[in-house]
């Protein structure tokens, strides 16, 4: 947010003040903060302390002489440098009073301007385009200065520091063509650029700043727009004249009225201030000082200036300086982007690209969009890590520079045959990770799915599986994938999707559950399903019906407990109902585990779950009961294996199912027994844990004793490694 704060008058102009000779030539920063150097178009230069509104010193040249180049301060020596009558250089100190008696050097060519940088001595720009540092010039004042711009006329110039090296940039005009010159002083290299032509309109004013070795040149054009031109500094090739293309940064118009700018300054990366006259149709034009946000293209604030201005605007240390009527006015402003990052000092340079696996949503939404696809860059990023941990990934990272973007490739593949398509896509995804790789993969999948939709016979199951398994995708990146898989009843793909996608909507989760429960075991036997989540607790080999007997560590034996309570029931039935046998086959169990593992929100899942047929509910509940009993066998209540469901996932799903179907379950005869078993088991567990709570103190003491034993200095123990 930018705001204009209070204003005050620095000095009067005209009689009694400064600037008798027709306004101000320029305002330059003084030797210390809060000081400015004012040069008028006549004979005088004045040093002001801004906050005191007080002149500290004033120097004038003799009658008949004119200061032609604004006085600048040499920050290294605290001397002032000026040129009068185009060629006569004067250097003086604060203590000097009479400019006639100070150092004088007559140069061989006309000076356009002197630029002084806080670190590095002043640089002199001659009207012919030659540049010398002051030191070099003083060694031989009469040295010959080359003319490099022939009959072009310098319109504007500016100097920067690029690291240690001063850089001077100036713009010239010749017959309506504008040229930009960039002069690097240390390497003495000069680049000439031509500004892209804009029909009918001409640049009125320039300003520039440097950031990360790129000069950003902003031009105010007569069509009331600000254009941005980027000039990279690191250019070694001397390819003669290059044309600089420009892009519109800002259109100076607000609700019908147009700002006819005369001069402008850059405040920060998102703000510019423009001085000009606001012309609304049917109204008289008013002069205004305005601040614009270039990011959002908005006018942030403006101040009307009823008295005339000279059209010049300067800005130092968060203050604007301009003539307003017969005085030099100072307006303070504030231009802050408050952010947390700034407060904790984590403000990252936006030019250094982050290595992240996040998708840049702006670059790729549709296949027509062209992706900025720079393999070289991605390689550079990869090698950034100082300590190279060699892993498998690196071996696949062979990158072929590919001029085609993903979007273009996809577009070109639209009409090819399926085999060609798959081959091409395989090649595409085997490439090294590029910045927007995931978005590109999303496009690849969308292309494939669209093809599946149009051609019902086409379904590249293996290829889709491969992509889903190898890439970090999400549901939102390829929303149609699971819908198509559901349609095709491709349970393996659905399983992988459930395991890998973090953001599956509850509706789809439910649809998967329904498909998994309804599909027959015989059918599943033929399908290849990832069994790693069940292999550790269900014996996958069906011939081996033996139920493993393990030491019951939890202090509770399901069979025993139930035997006591349900002596009437035949052992056989209660075993099947009581969770010692898995009610579903391993394939189905693995699929259901994938559902158990997926993230969901109860409120959204419950309405869908109500639609599940009662038989399937009973089957699923039986399986959950089996899992619950199985996991309670162990002291840590976890099921072994990778991606096996946790006890809280099991409990949550059990509660959800019962919530959704309680009335049906109560009525259903085959569910009755299951429910009562479940109830008994839970009751027994609750009792067991409450007993454990009672003896918690004693257990802790036991543990302490155990630890004490541990602190012995020597013991012989048995260690088994499997």
């Amino acid at each position, binding site marked *: 947010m930018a705001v204009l704060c209070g204003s005050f008058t620095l000095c009067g102009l005209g009689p009694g003040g400064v600037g008798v000779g027709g306004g101000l030539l320029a305002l330059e920063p003084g030797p210390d903060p809060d000081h400015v150097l004012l040069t008028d178009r006549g004979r005088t230069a004045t040093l002001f302390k801004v906050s005191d509104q007080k002149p500290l010193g004033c120097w004038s040249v003799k009658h008949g002489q004119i200061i032609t180049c604004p006085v600048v301060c040499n920050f290294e020596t605290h001397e002032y440098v000026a040129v009068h009558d185009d060629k006569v250089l004067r250097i003086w100190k604060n203590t000097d009073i009479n400019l006639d008696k100070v150092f004088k050097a007559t140069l061989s060519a006309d000076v356009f301007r002197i630029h002084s940088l806080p670190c590095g001595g002043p640089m002199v720009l001659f009207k012919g385009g030659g540049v010398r540092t002051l030191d070099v010039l003083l060694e031989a004042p009469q040295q010959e200065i080359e003319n490099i711009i022939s009959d072009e006329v310098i319109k504007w110039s500016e100097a920067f520091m690029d690291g240690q090296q001063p850089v001077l940039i100036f713009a010239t005009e010749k017959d309506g063509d504008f040229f930009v010159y960039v002069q690097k002083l240390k390497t003495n290299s000069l680049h000439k650029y031509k500004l892209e032509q804009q029909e009918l309109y001409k640049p009125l004013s320039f300003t520039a700043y440097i950031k990360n070795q790129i000069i950003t040149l902003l031009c105010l054009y007569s069509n009331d727009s600000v254009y941005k031109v980027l000039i990279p500094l690191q250019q070694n090739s001397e390819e003669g004249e290059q044309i600089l293309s420009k892009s519109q940064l800002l259109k100076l118009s607000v609700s019908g009225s147009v700002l006819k700018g005369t001069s402008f300054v850059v405040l920060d990366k998102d703000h510019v201030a423009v001085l000009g006259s606001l012309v609304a149709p049917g109204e008289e034009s008013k002069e205004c000082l305005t601040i614009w946000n270039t990011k959002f293209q908005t006018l942030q604030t403006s101040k009307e200036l009823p008295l005339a201005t000279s059209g010049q605007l300067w800005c130092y240390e968060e203050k604007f300086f301009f003539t307003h009527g017969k005085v030099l006015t100072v307006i303070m402003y504030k231009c802050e982007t408050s952010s947390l990052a700034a407060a*904790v000092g984590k403000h990252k340079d936006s030019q250094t690209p982050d290595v992240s696996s996040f998708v840049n949503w702006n670059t790729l939404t549709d296949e027509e969009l062209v992706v900025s696809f720079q393999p070289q860059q991605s390689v550079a990023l990869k090698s950034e890590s100082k300590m190279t941990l060699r*892993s498998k990934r690196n071996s696949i990272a062979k990158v072929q520079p590919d001029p085609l973007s993903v979007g273009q490739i996809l577009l070109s593949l639209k009409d090819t045959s399926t085999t060609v398509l798959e081959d091409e896509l395989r090649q595409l995804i085997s490439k090294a990770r590029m910045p927007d790789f995931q978005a590109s993969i999303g496009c690849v999948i969308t292309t494939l799915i669209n093809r599946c939709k149009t051609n019902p016979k086409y379904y590249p199951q293996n290829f889709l599986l491969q992509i889903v398994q190898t890439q970090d995708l999400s549901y939102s990146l390829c929303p149609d994938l699971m819908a198509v898989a559901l349609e095709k009843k491709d349970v393996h793909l659905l399983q992988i999707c459930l395991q890998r996608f973090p953001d599956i909507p509850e509706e789809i989760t439910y649809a998967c559950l329904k498909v998994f429960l309804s599909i027959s075991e015989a059918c599943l036997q033929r399908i290849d399903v990832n069994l790693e989540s069940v292999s*550790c607790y269900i014996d996958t080999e069906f011939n081996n019906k033996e139920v493993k007997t393990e030491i019951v560590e939890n202090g509770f034996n399901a069979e025993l407990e139930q035997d006591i309570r349900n002596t009437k029931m035949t052992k056989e039935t209660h075993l099947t109902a009581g969770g010692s046998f898995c009610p579903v086959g391993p394939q189905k169990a693995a699929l259901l585990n994938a559902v158990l593992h997926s993230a969901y929100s109860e409120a959204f899942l419950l309405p869908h779950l109500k639609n599940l047929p009662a038989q399937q509910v009973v089957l699923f509940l039986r399986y959950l009961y089996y899992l619950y009993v199985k996991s309670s066998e162990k002291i840590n209540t976890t099921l072994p294996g990778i991606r096996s469901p946790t006890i809280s996932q099991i409990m949550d799903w059990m509660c959800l199912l019962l919530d959704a179907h309680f009335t049906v379950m109560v009525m259903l005869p085959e569910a009755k027994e299951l429910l009562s078993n479940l109830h008994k088991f839970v009751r027994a567990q609750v009792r067991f844990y409450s007993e454990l709570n009672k003896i918690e103190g004693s257990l802790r003491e036991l543990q302490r004793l155990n630890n004490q034993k541990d602190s012995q*200095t020597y013991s012989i123990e*048995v260690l088994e*490694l*499997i």
Partner: protein
Amino acid sequence: MGEFEVHRVRFFGLVPAGVRCLAYQPRGGRLALGRTDGAVEVYNFAANYFQEKVIPGHEARSVEALCWVTGDRLFGAGLGGEISEYDLSRLCVSHSVDGGGGPIWSMAANSSGTQLAIGCEDGSVKLFQVVPGGIQFERNLDRRKGRILCLSWHPSDTHIAAGSIDILRVFDVSSGQTIQRIMVNYHVHKVKRECIVWSIAFLSSGTVVTSDSFGRVQFWDWERGTLLESHTVSTSAVLSLSVSEEEDSIVVGTSTGATYQFQLLPVKMGSLEKRWVRTKPFQHHTHDVRAVAHSSTALISGGLDAQLVIRPLMEKIQKKSYEAALRKFTFPHRRLVSCARKARLLLFQFSQHLELWRLGSTDETGKDGEVLPLRRMPEHLVQLKSKGPEHIYCSCISPCGSWVAYSTASRFHLYRVQYEGDSVSVKKVPKVPKLLLPACQLQFCADSNSLFVAAAQGSVHVLQLLEPGGCTHLHTLQPPSGCPEAVYLLAVSTDGHWLAAVSGDWAIHIYNLKSFKHHCTVPTYNCAVTAIAIHPITNNLVIAYSDQQLFEFNIPEKQYTAWSRTVQNQGLHKVWLERDSPITHITFNPKNPSHILLHDTYMFCVLDKSLPLPDNSALLMNQSTLKQLPETARQRQLHAFKICKKFQPLLFADLLDENCLVMVERPIMDFKTQLPLPIQQKKFGT
């Protein structure tokens, strides 16, 4: 796979010495660390923070300050009053010069590396000129009363700021005069205690930063002598301070074990006005943080609790992964224990003595996790005290247990140990051959007939041991192309045919012991070697590198084995690669040729080459999962790495026989109780 009877040893009373000073060398990525016992260590950050060089201490040579000069020369100074230059290739002090001002409390090198300034007990600041091969006294700066506890050069080398008691002074280097003195306790109301300036830094802006015993970090304008900013960070002393190269961040260490970061931040975004702000507190230490250093990406601190902590700064690291992990090092990255397998003896190396222990035994067997009743308790047989002020570099016991050797910086000792019933007699072997010392590693061959002494310039001396107690120098092995660095790791094959030696430049040379000829060099790998061993049956050399890579090299065929190539093709498991402590010992099970036993500080691993390597999706530490599984399900889950993390921190592990292991642990709490008490801090109430 099998059950082991594990002798769990916790009677190795090692107390690592506290960290006294740190010096970070940004260009080489190396950190020099001085300990309170005078030992100097060099950590190589590029080689996964491996403790690359160790120069053991000396009774009379404490290290109060360390300085890198012109990149790779390391100087140290201490209360002994001497300035020493360390020879990092021979791992000893190359020469030392008396400072002439009594005990030296501080030392700093100027930015161009031409001069060293020392701060002495007598209150003088002395300048020494750094010349090739040594240093020369140049002159004294203006001397006043009060020891100079800390020093800092202005980056332009024109001024020196020195901190003393109650006062800090700024010297002009060219004139040698005190041009500013600032009383640091001036601002404290009614001071009775003296205020010690523990640490000082001179910034290029002319700001002097001090940390003092009142718990303050203060910023001074030295020209005006005024206090710019004062931050009280602690109720107890702020002992150490270090500034980043860009001078936008400062790390300080306090006597409560906390470290704090200060950052120079704009008061608001985009503003030019900047202020020092205390940003991040860390509590990694339990005792005084005597030394801190600031690398470009991390805060480094060392405490009297012997810990070196490297805490990367998240905002300086582009990749938020493994490199952003906190590193803590307490124990040396080398072995201090040697084991006589046949005799079941353990030899412990302390800084100035050795202890010989006999392991106990049991008759029982049991199930996993059970503690077996002891038939015989372990026995402390001998304590061998090293004479003289020098600390022990290395030690070794022969497999039969009848020879013990150790070396200090200038002397090599060999003892003959004889066991008769319960009594033990130790006889020193007279007239050991004169060798070029110090020796960095000793290794007996399997039949205890010869001893290999690793020495400077890549050489290995072969000594023949003679009954009843003598030895002769048989040969000196040297790499054919020469090598400036000392050998620091040795491995000899069981059949006595081959010897592998690793020198400080990480080259592995293999010698044929039958012909005493250089056999070959293992292809160079760009990382430090942390452990090597030769397989007793296949004569394959197994090499562990500090980036956690494992290689197997077939010595007779002079090439990597097929298994090693498979490992490199498939890549090791991510979790394995991200461990932060190096493998310090490798051994084998002769009954199971496919097994490699290795360990680092936090785990013991049996690597079964016959099983498939785990991929990244598999669980690396899967022992507890496997134990829950039925036999049938186990087979599918098995992979090559069988890791046990029960024994921590593990200083040594070895196989005594087929199914008997010895594990030497040193629980952190055990040695923490032997450290001086830290400052008491109230935890509850007010």
